[in-house]
């Protein structure tokens, strides 16, 4: 601590505040203040203040539930795929560890939209995926992948998978290998050592990864728009549409606010349990 080095002088007491000032001011003006104007906008319509909220919940409840359902599905799929890969990189990759970590991040250096368009190419009618599934008689001759729930949830899973893998990897990496060895010396099966030692110690990573996947997936509308039909429309599309096309600002703002409120409550409850440090 350099703060203790120069004692309790006035300058060093002020130092941390001067250091955080520019960034924190920026966040106050362009993150906190907008949240307040958003709340104001949401109650600024004609009629009683809750009018827009009534319409938001009444007309678009189905979109909220669909978004939460798709995001939950994508999070579970990402966990099922991400955990084995994170485990493999942390415990079994040896010298390949850094290379594999790089490979996990690398696809995300091509634009999110271009990647999603690539999925459209893969899942297209007459494309390779449909052809393969039809040959295997999993899909009916006239069956499609594009414009289905499977395509949308698959796209969401793909786009947020690294946010699941990296936190799990970090928490697995921290585990003391001797604990696992000790467990294997004492218990007989590796499965039990995994269940009683590795899994509990990796739970912070699982929680952080789940949040970092679930939150952006809930608000996303690109996957639903490019890979789904209007039947798969998510709440993000509605918000974007109301804000930028219809320009019903009170309704759009109340939709955003409900979405944020639902998610923030969950996150705050979680942060209370684990401490915000765990999220980083």
């Amino acid at each position, binding site marked *: *601590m*350099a*703060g203790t080095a120069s004692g309790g002088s006035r300058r060093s007491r002020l*130092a*941390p*505040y001067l*250091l*955080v000032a*520019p*960034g924190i001011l*920026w*966040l*106050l003006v*362009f*993150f906190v203040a*907008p949240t307040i*104007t*958003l709340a*104001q*906008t949401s109650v600024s319509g004609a009629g009683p203040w809750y009018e827009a909220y009534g319409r938001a919940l009444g007309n678009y409840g189905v979109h909220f539930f669909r978004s939460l359902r798709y995001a939950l599905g994508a999070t579970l799929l990402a966990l099922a*795929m991400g955990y*084995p890969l994170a485990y*493999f*990189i942390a415990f079994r990759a040896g010298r390949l560890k*850094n290379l594999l*970590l*790089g*490979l*996990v991040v*690398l*696809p*995300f*250096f091509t*634009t*999110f*939209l*271009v*990647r999603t*368009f*690539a999925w459209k*190419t*893969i899942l*297209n009618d*007459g494309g390779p995926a449909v052809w393969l599934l039809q040959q295997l008689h999993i899909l009916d001759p006239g069956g499609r992948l594009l414009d289905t729930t499977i395509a949308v949830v698959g796209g969401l899973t*793909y786009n947020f998978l690294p946010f699941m893998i990296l936190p799990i990897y*970090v928490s697995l*990496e921290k585990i003391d290998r001797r604990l696992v060895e000790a467990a294997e010396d004492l218990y007989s099966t590796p*499965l039990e050592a995994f269940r009683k030692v590795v899994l509990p110690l990796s739970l912070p990573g699982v929680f952080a990864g789940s949040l970092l996947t679930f939150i*952006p997936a809930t*608000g*996303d509308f690109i996957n639903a728009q490019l890979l789904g039909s209007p039947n798969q429309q998510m709440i*993000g599309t509605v918000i974007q549409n109301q804000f*930028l096309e219809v320009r019903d*600002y009170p309704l759009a703002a109340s939709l*955003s606010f409900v979405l*944020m409120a639902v998610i*923030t409550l969950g996150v705050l409850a979680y942060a209370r349990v684990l401490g915000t*440090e765990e*999220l*980083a």
Partner: protein
Amino acid sequence: MRRLGRWLMDGVAWLVLLYLFLPIFVIILYSFNKPAGKFNFVWKSFSLEAWSNPFAYEALYESMKLSLRVAALSTLVATIFGTLIALALTRYKFRGSSAVNLLLVLPLTTPEVVLGSSLLSLFLDFNVRSGFNTIVIAHIMFSVSYVALTVRARIRGFDWTLEEAAMDLGAPPMRVFFKVTLPIIAPGIVAAAMLAFALSLDDFIITLFNAGNRVTYPLYVYGARRAAFPPQINVLATAILLLSLLALGATVLWQQRTLRQRGMSVTPLA
């Protein structure tokens, strides 16, 4: 039985890696396509046409230039702001530090559609016209948290007594900062800046709300689904990927070297 379980785990891991790269292969492959119509979604025949003429579409070229300008500017500002916050959080105990922590985490746990729309509602309220400035403002806003948290995670374990030693030996504060502090925190800052740059270059949702009539590269790609989707989009995407690969490789090597020189363990990217 034990071996079967291991094989199964490893198999799943390799399949997931393959899944991660499947669309990337498609993007690269289709950059060599000569599509039948305006939309590069169906394979027709191999061609080097798009690669030999990557800037054939003026608007695409302009959108890429805009994206690079936005990314450069927002990365510069966000890296400075974020690094200062990280230094404060790792080196001082102060009242309000947990509030600062919370304020850093909240933008990451807010869906982009909410960040973008609330910023738009602020700009509408104050009659600010959307354009280059509002895009940069938005990008700095979401990058500051990533930079601060990345730099903090990287410098948490460092030995700050080195600074005191330098001061005890009579080095003036500026000299201590440039000769001791900066070399210690530099790898973390570079990693954070690269992350901020990549996030800015890739951002679509927040930008859509605050771009006005300006068109960044992701916004161009989004619009291309209606008018024309030329293979040049894939060429530029592949080029970005190759450049990132080079940058990533170079930083990992550089970090390993500097860390090894100080006898520290090597954990890049995490």
